[in-house]
């Protein structure tokens, strides 16, 4: 360890290669004690890789990291053992002992005192799998704090939080920083950067492209640095007269904290209905119920006809979904683009011919999707595993929109993809709406919904807490409802 005056952590010349890919390409970074430092960049810019290197979870190919204490890392996807209790998760690896035994009483007390100290209220004896996402994140943070880190790195910590919870989190982080820790927050929500961070570093293509004190920069400058130019424009929304299409009555699905508890709404043809809400308020259950992949109660209709049956029957009826986890729920990664575009439509003409798949039809469809969605791939024979996240998502969205869908369920369709791809995906959704499709768009990014949706429904604890039409969009009011305000 090298002591650096004023700096809690210093990284010099960090390079990380994965095979031929250079994820991080010569980054210098210094985190000062007492600061909250924002790290921004598009997906694939190398932020998470850098974070793991700083935390010592990944060895750099070149360069070195000097730190004056442990570096804690709060993961975007929590790394908790679901079936263990909170206290067990927190002390794992550094268990208090009495002789050979694990001192459970001491461990519980430690969790309680940490929770008090940082105002992160949580029951030490709760089993993690029973906790809502926001609470689970507290456990993850507590686990890192238990190590008394001099530097705490949080990877997209606000993605799962409501605006009010975000404020509380930053209050916690600020008090932590005040005690002399360095905090680095990875985020792509630029408003948060301006409001809460002292300094900001922007990465693009593995390199640092901007360093600034937040007081001396602007939201727009950060955004331009991230994209490397102007943010592309969205497709224009044409005036269409909405017609009745999809309706749900008293829909219930899932169980536990993330359940959907009786949602009634309709999505008309020719409109985009945005579902606003913090992750874990029933969005997954809602989309899965419409797709027919989970059991549910309640009724759904499409053009007045009841919507029933297995996912295949729904697809056949014109209900298309863009699932949240494209790599697991939408694509067969080792397969080619041409083979993937048939998934879900493999049972019907034109892709099916007798007992066989019609290869020509598949190829034609794939070629069309690649052209229309600007999929960057060597050929339609390329395995989708070899594509970037953005291009994978283009294939998924392209497939969902290829057969003139009547209902499109899009769950975070722009999550984790670069701005250009995101803009293209959003534009294509708007075009589908213009063509008369009923689009249900779930997003945790209020800005995305404000930009794209015709109507916004706020989902809170599995029920619809409020409805806004485009003319009456009210950011503050929506944010309050997302956090459970009456």
């Amino acid at each position, binding site marked *: 360890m090298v002591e650096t005056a004023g700096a809690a952590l210093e990284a010099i010349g960090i390079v990380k290669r994965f095979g031929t890919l250079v994820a991080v390409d010569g980054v210098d970074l210094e985190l000062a004690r007492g600061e909250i430092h924002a790290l921004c960049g598009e997906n694939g810019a190398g932020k998470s890789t850098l974070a793991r290197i700083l935390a010592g*979870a990944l060895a750099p190919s070149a360069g070195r990291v000097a730190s004056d204490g442990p570096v804690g*890392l709060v*993961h975007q996807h929590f*790394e*908790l*053992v*679901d*079936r*263990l209790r909170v206290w*067990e*998760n927190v*002390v*794992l*690896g*550094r*268990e208090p*002992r009495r002789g*050979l*035994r*694990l001192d*459970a009483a001491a461990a519980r007390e430690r969790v309680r005192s940490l929770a008090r100290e940082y105002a992160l209220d949580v029951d030490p004896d709760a089993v993690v799998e029973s906790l809502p996402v926001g609470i689970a994140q507290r456990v993850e943070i507590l*686990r890192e704090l238990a*190590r008394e880190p001099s530097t705490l790195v949080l990877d997209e910590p606000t993605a799962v939080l409501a605006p009010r919870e975000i404020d509380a989190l930053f209050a916690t982080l600020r008090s932590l920083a005040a005690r002399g820790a360095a905090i680095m927050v990875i985020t792509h929500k630029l408003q948060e950067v301006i409001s809460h961070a002292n300094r900001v570093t922007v990465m693009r293509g593995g390199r640092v492209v901007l360093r600034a004190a937040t007081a001396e920069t602007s939201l727009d400058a950060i955004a331009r640095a991230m994209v490397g130019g102007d943010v592309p424009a969205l497709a224009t929304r044409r005036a269409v007269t909405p017609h009745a299409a999809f309706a749900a009555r008293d829909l219930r699905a899932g169980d536990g904290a993330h359940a959907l508890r009786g949602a009634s709404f309709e999505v008309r043809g020719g409109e985009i209905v945005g579902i606003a809400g913090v992750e874990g308020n029933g969005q997954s259950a809602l989309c899965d119920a419409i797709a027919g992949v989970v059991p549910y109660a309640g009724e759904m209709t499409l053009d007045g006809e009841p919507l029933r049956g297995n996912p295949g029957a729904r697809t056949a009826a014109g209900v298309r979904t863009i699932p949240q986890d494209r790599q697991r729920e939408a694509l067969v990664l080792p397969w080619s683009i041409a083979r993937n575009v048939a998934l879900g439509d493999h049972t019907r003409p034109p892709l099916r011919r007798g007992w066989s798949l019609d290869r020509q039809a598949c190829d034609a469809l794939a070629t069309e999707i690649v052209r229309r969605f600007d999929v960057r791939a060597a050929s339609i024979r390329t395995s989708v595993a070899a594509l970037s996240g953005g291009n994978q998502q283009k294939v998924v969205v392209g497939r969902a929109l290829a057969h003139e869908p009547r209902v499109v369920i899009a769950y975070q369709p722009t999550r984790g993809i670069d701005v250009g791809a995101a803009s293209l995906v959003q534009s294509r959704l708007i075009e589908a709406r213009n063509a008369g499709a009923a689009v249900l768009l779930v997003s945790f990014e209020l800005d995305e919904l404000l930009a794209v949706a015709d109507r916004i429904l706020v989902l809170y604890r599995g029920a619809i807490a409020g409805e806004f039409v485009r003319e009456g969009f009210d950011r503050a009011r929506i944010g309050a409802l997302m956090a459970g305000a009456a």
Partner: protein
Amino acid sequence: MAELLDFFQLALVKATPLIFAALAGVICERSGILNIALEGGLTVGAFTGAAVSFETGNPLLGLIAGMLAGALLCGLLGVAATRFGVDQIVAGIGLNMLAAGATAFAVVVLFGAPGATPEVHALGSAGETALIAVAVVAALALQLGFDRTPWGLRLRACGENPQAVLSAGLDPRRIRVLATLAGGAIAGLGGVFLSLGELDLYSDGMTAGRGFIALAAVIFGRWTPLGAAGAALAFGALSALQFVLQRSGVPSELMQALPYLAALAALTGIVGKARAPAADGVSL
């Protein structure tokens, strides 16, 4: 009354190698390694125990060697599964074949005649009784270890979510390898119980599927040490009952099949839904 006592004693003797193997299975599976090479662990334990006792004349050395051999065989599974991305199931099948082939081959090479070793110095009936006690104590100790010690917590965490273990600053690969080594040693002890505890020789095929019954016991016992040991005891009693009731009209094959049928029943969840460790059988 005396007959009942005899029956319990027989059941305990029948159950002991099953208990050892089942405990080995629980340790491995709770760490995330589905070890179907328990049969192989028993086999190499039994053989090595007998061979070393033959060479040294000291059955205690044989016991230690048998445990080491079991640890080596199952440790191979652990290393292969954590370091080389080997599939656990297929590797387990390979290790079973390897253990059977290697021991049979070694019997020929070392002892000149195929089939069985000559008689060797065994642990005797006191040793046998001691090992039975060890099996019971081991089940209790393991249960306490699982519930009450840091290592137990780490092992359980590793079988549920190795990524979380990694981010807690521990090496899940190391935990899994250690678990297979410890489990293998216990399976080896089960083999030693057969060759040096109950008997005084090694003979090809003498494990006779006990490693597979142990796998059934792990499921039936819901992946806990006491549960698995209890299931092993029940299977031991079942097979003792088969001995006593033979030729009473029930086909002996049916009685022999009961543990396996019980395991199949356990898979249906009819006897109570059991959840395997989330990362059981998932290679790193």
